[in-house]
C-alpha cells in the first residue's frame, strides 16, 4: 500500500473531535429555513392535476370550471407551458442510452399514475386543490406495462423510442467461461430480487419561483445543491436573457431524490414565467409516494464458481432494473456492474445489465444506487459458505484483497487502493465474540428459537471526480475586517452537517475559534459551481477545497504579519485567533488586526500584495476514492409470526481520518437504518393496472425507533490520496447494511434451508421462506 497522505492539521483542535453541530440550535428551536417557510407578496400556490391511469392517450382537457373558481388565478396545460419550452435532461447514462423526450407536463399521452397533466395556481393551496379537482381530463385507457417482465415483452412505453430497453451493457463474449464453471468444485447460484423503494425525505420536494424584474428568476428549492438547480434550469429553459439564482438554506433530507430538479419544479418555473407572480409548490406525501421518482426494483441472477479450497474462480451475473417511465437517467446501473467484484480477488467475470422503461414512477439515484452489487455478492458468498460447509468469515478471508495486493486493479478497470477490507473484518470479528454467539444460537435452536448472525464486507467508490459534473468543488474563504471568517463552499447539507465539519477544517487551519467561522452553501449566486451532495463526496471534495483555500489564506496572514512585524514567515503560527511569532511573545498580534491592515491600512501590506484577506481554491480530487467497511448483526426470527428482531449491529468502517466522528456515525446509522427499512418493511407496490398501492405512511412503512438496534461503531482510519486523506461516508451504511441483515436472517433460518433472496423479508415472506406459507 502507498504511504498515507500527509494530514496537514498537526495542531488540530476541532478536526477529529465530536464538535457539537453549529446548525442544531436553529433546527431545535424551530428556526430552520426550509422552502415551505418562504412566502412572498403576491405568491400563488400550485397544485398538479395528475393522471389517475398508468397508460393512455389524453383525449381532452377541460379547465373552464377550474378557471372559473374564485381564487384560482390560472390553469396551465402542456400547451400553455410550451410558450417557454423546457425539455428535461437526464443525469445518468451514456451516449448509447435511449432517453425519451421529457417535458414538464404530459402532452399527448400519460405514462404513469401521477403523471402531471395540468397545474392550477390559486391564492392558497386549499383553493388550488379545489381547482385541480374541477379539471376534467378524458383519457383513452390502455394496458399498462408495469413489471420488468411486462417491459421485456409488452408495448412500447415511449412512442419516440423503438424499445423499452433504455440501455444494455455487457462484457464481451468469454468462450472459456463455461469450462471454468464446468470444472469448478463448487458452483453457487441464486436470483436476488429487490423491491422498489421510495426515498421519503421527511421534507418532500418543493419550490418557490419568482421573477425579479425581467432578467432574474429567483428560486428557493428543496435540493441537494443550489448550483445544480441553477445549472439545470438554465439548460432546460435555455433563455439567453434569463439568469437563475437558487437559494436553499435548510433541506429536510434528499438521499438522491433531489439531486436535480424534475418535471414539477420545471413546471413551476414555467408557470412563474407565465403568470408573472411568485409561485410555490410543496409536494404532499401522496404525491411523494406516487409521483416522485423512486428507486431499486431490480433483480440479478448470479453464478459463482469456486475451487475446492473455496477460492473464487469466476462470477457471471445478469441484472435487470425497472427504470419506470421518466427516470433521472437511462442507465442500467452500470456502476453496480463495475463494483460487483468488490474487495475480492475475482479472476474471471461476466455481466449483462439492462434497464427497462415501464408505466411506473421513474427511478432516481438512491443512497448507494449501485448497492445491488454488494447485496448480490455478499448474500451469495454466505450461501456459498453454507453450501460448501465453510465458515462465512473464513470464506471471505480466503478471497479478500489484502494490503499486499494493493493497488488492486479490478477486472472492470477500477483501481482500488488504500482500503482495509481484511482489517475491518478482523477488527469486527474480534469485537463480536462469535463463539459465544454460536453457543447461544445452538442453545436457542434446541429450545425452538432461531437466532442468526450475518456479515457483509464492501468497498465503495466515492467522490467520482473522473469527469462530468462531479469533477471539482470550490471554496471561497475570507476573513472579514471584523476578524470573523466566512467560508462559501460548493458543498450542500440536507442534514450532512457540513456547516460544522467545514468550519472545523477552517478553524484549525486558521487557528481561530469555530464560533467565529460561518459556512455558506445556500446560494448559487455566491461561490461557484459544485454538485453538492452525491457520491459520498463532500468531505473529500469540499473538504479538500476548504483545506487548500484556508491554507492559502493562512499563508497570506503569515506573509502580512511577517512584513509588518519584520519577522520570517516560517516563525509565525496561528492559534486562538492570534498571530504568534516563535520565541517573541510581545510581538503577538491578532487575526483581526491583520484583517484591519489588509482592508484599511493597505499601505502597510508587502509591496505588490493584493489587498483584503480572501482566498479561493477549486479542488480536483483524485478521480475515485475508496471507502470500505465490514458490518455484522444478529437477529432473532419468530418462526410463528415471521417477525425479525435485530439484536445487535456492529460496524467497522474505514472512511479515512474523520473530521467529526459523531457526524460520521450519524451518516452510517442513517444509511444502515434505511437499509433495514429496505430489507424488512418498505415496498412501493403496483397492481396489474399500474396503480400504486402503498400511498401513505400507513402502507409504506419506514423504520421507527422501535425497529432499530443501538449500533456499535468501530473505526479504522487509513488516509486516502485526497487532501486531508478523507474518503467519504454518506452512502456506505445503505450499501453494506442490507446484505448484513439478509445474511443474519438466512443464518437464523438455515435449518429450514432458506435463502432469503427475495426482498422485503416481511413477515409473510419470511413464513414463505420457512415453508409455512406460500
Amino acid at each position, binding site marked *: 500500500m502507498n504511504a498515507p497522505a500527509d494530514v496537514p492539521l498537526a495542531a488540530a483542535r476541532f478536526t477529529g473531535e465530536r464538535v*457539537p453541530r453549529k446548525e442544531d440550535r436553529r433546527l*431545535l428551536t*424551530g428556526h430552520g429555513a426550509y422552502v415551505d417557510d418562504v412566502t412572498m407578496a403576491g405568491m400563488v400556490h400550485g397544485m398538479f392535476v395528475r393522471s389517475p391511469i398508468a397508460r393512455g392517450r389524453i383525449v381532452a382537457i377541460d379547465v373552464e370550471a377550474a378557471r372559473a373558481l374564485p381564487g384560482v388565478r390560472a390553469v396551465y396545460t402542456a400547451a400553455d407551458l410550451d410558450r417557454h419550452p423546457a425539455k428535461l435532461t437526464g443525469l445518468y447514462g451514456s451516449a448509447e442510452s435511449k432517453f425519451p423526450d421529457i417535458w414538464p407536463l404530459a402532452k399527448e399521452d400519460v405514462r404513469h399514475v401521477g403523471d402531471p397533466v395540468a397545474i392550477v395556481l390559486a391564492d392558497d393551496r386549499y383553493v388550488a386543490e379545489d381547482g385541480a379537482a374541477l379539471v376534467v381530463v378524458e383519457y383513452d385507457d390502455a394496458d399498462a406495462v408495469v413489471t420488468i417482465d411486462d417491459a421485456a415483452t409488452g408495448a412500447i412505453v415511449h412512442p419516440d423510442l423503438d424499445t423499452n430497453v433504455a440501455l444494455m451493457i455487457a462484457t464481451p463474449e468469454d468462450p472459456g467461461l463455461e469450462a471454468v464453471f464446468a470444472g469448478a468444485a463448487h458452483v453457487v447460484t441464486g436470483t436476488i430480487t429487490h423491491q422498489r423503494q421510495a426515498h421519503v425525505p*421527511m421534507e418532500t420536494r418543493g419550490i418557490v419561483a419568482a421573477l425579479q424584474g425581467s432578467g432574474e428568476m429567483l428560486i428557493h428549492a428543496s435540493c441537494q445543491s443550489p448550483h445544480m438547480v441553477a445549472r439545470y434550469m438554465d439548460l432546460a429553459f435555455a433563455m439567453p436573457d434569463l439568469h437563475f439564482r437558487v437559494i436553499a438554506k435548510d433541506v429536510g*433530507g434528499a438521499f438522491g431524490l433531489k439531486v436535480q430538479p424534475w418535471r414539477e419544479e420545471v413546471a413551476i418555473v414555467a408557470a412563474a414565467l407565465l403568470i408573472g407572480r411568485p409561485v410555490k409548490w410543496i409536494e404532499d*406525501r401522496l404525491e411523494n409516494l406516487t409521483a416522485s421518482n423512486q428507486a431499486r426494483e431490480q433483480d440479478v441472477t448470479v453464478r459463482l464458481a469456486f475451487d475446492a479450497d473455496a477460492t473464487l474462480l469466476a462470477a457471471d451475473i445478469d441484472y435487470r432494473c425497472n427504470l419506470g417511465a421518466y427516470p433521472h437517467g437511462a442507465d442500467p446501473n452500470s456502476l453496480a456492474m463495475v463494483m460487483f467484484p468488490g474487495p475480492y480477488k475475482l479472476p474471471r467475470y461476466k455481466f449483462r445489465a439492462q434497464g427497462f422503461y415501464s408505466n411506473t414512477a421513474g427511478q432516481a439515484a438512491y443512497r448507494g444506487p449501485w448497492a445491488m452489487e454488494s447485496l448480490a455478492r455478499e448474500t451469495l458468498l454466505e450461501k456459498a459458505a453454507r453450501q460448501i460447509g465453510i465458515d462465512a468469515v473464513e470464506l471471505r478471508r480466503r478471497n479478500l484483497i489484502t494490503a499486499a495486493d494493493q493497488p488492486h486493479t479490478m477486472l472492470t478497470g477500477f483501481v482500488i487502493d488504500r482500503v482495509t477490507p481484511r482489517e475491518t473484518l478482523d477488527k469486527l470479528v474480534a469485537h463480536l465474540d462469535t463463539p459465544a454467539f454460536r453457543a447461544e444460537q445452538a442453545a436457542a435452536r434446541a429450545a425452538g428459537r432461531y437466532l442468526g448472525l450475518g456479515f457483509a464486507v464492501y468497498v465503495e467508490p466515492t467522490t467520482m471526480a473522473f469527469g462530468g459534473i462531479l469533477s471539482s468543488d470550490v471554496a471561497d474563504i475570507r476573513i472579514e475586517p471584523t476578524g470573523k471568517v466566512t467560508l462559501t463552499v460548493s458543498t450542500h447539507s440536507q442534514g450532512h452537517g457540513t456547516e460544522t465539519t467545514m468550519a472545523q477544517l477552517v478553524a484549525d487551519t486558521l487557528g481561530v475559534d469555530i464560533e467565529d467561522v460561518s459556512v455558506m452553501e445556500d446560494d448559487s449566486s455566491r461561490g461557484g459551481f459544485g454538485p453538492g451532495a452525491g457520491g459520498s463526496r463532500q468531505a473529500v471534495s469540499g473538504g479538500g477545497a476548504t483545506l487548500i483555500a484556508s491554507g492559502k489564506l493562512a499563508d497570506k496572514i503569515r506573509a502580512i504579519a511577517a512584513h509588518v512585524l519584520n519577522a520570517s514567515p516560517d516563525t509565525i503560527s496561528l492559534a486562538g485567533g492570534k498571530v504568534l511569532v516563535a520565541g517573541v511573545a510581545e510581538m503577538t498580534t491578532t487575526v483581526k488586526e491583520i484583517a484591519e491592515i489588509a482592508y484599511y491600512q493597505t499601505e502597510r501590506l508587502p509591496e505588490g500584495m493584493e489587498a483584503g484577506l480572501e482566498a479561493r481554491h477549486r479542488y480536483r480530487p483524485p478521480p475515485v476514492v475508496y471507502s470500505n467497511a465490514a458490518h455484522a448483526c444478529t437477529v432473532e426470527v419468530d418462526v410463528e409470526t415471521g417477525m425479525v428482531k435485530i439484536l445487535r449491529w456492529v460496524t467497522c468502517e474505514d472512511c479515512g481520518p474523520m473530521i467529526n466522528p459523531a457526524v460520521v456515525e450519524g451518516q452510517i446509522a442513517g444509511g444502515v437504518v434505511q437499509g433495514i427499512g429496505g430489507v424488512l418493511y418498505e415496498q412501493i407496490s403496483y397492481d396489474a393496472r399500474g396503480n400504486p398501492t402503498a400511498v401513505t405512511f400507513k402502507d409504506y412503512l419506514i423504520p*421507527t*425507533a*422501535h425497529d*432499530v438496534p443501538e449500533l456499535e461503531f468501530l473505526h479504522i482510519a487509513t488516509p486516502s490520496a485526497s487532501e486531508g486523506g478523507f474518503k467519504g461516508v454518506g452512502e456506505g451504511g445503505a450499501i453494506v447494511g442490507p446484505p448484513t441483515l439478509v445474511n443474519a436472517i438466512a443464518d437464523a433460518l438455515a435449518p429450514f434451508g432458506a435463502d432469503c433472496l427475495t426482498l422485503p423479508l416481511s413477515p409473510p415472506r419470511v413464513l414463505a421462506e420457512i415453508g409455512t406459507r406460500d
Partner: protein
Amino acid sequence: MSSHAIETIVNGQSISAQVEARHTLADFLRGTAGCTGVHVGCEHGVCGACTVIVDGVAVRSCLMLAVQADGATVATAESLAAPDGTLHRVQQAMKDEYGLQCGFCTPGVVMTLAAITQGRSPDAEEIKDALSGHLCRCTGYQGMLKVAKRLGGEVQA
C-alpha cells in the same frame, strides 16, 4: 367555505383570527401565527413532524382543525428555549446526543419529549415508546435513543 372567528394563545401571544372550517391547525400555526417550526411531513397523522402542545398535551396539528383550537393555549418548538436562549433540556439533550441531522422531524420530536417530561419522569422505555410515533429518515434514531436513556434517568447527563 364557512369562516369562523377563533381566539388562541400561541407561544404566549394571543391571536384573534378568522379561519375556514377546513383549515388545519398546522396551516394556521405556520401561516397566520408564523410558527414555521411546525413542520408538515405527511398530513395524515403518522410522521409526527407537526406535533405541538395544545393545553399541555402533545397533538398532531395536521389532524386538528384550527377552529378546534378556539380558546386553547398552543406551544410550538419556537417557545421551548428560555428567553435568554438557554435550550430546554430536551433540546439540549438532542443537541448533545446528535439526535438530529436535517432537522425536519426535530421540532415535533422535541415537543413530544417536552410534553411527556413536563412535571413527570417517564422511564427510558416510555420515552422510546413516545419516540416511535415520530418518523425520522436521517438519523436511524441513534441519538434519540440516547436521549431517551438520558432523560429517562438511566444515563447521567
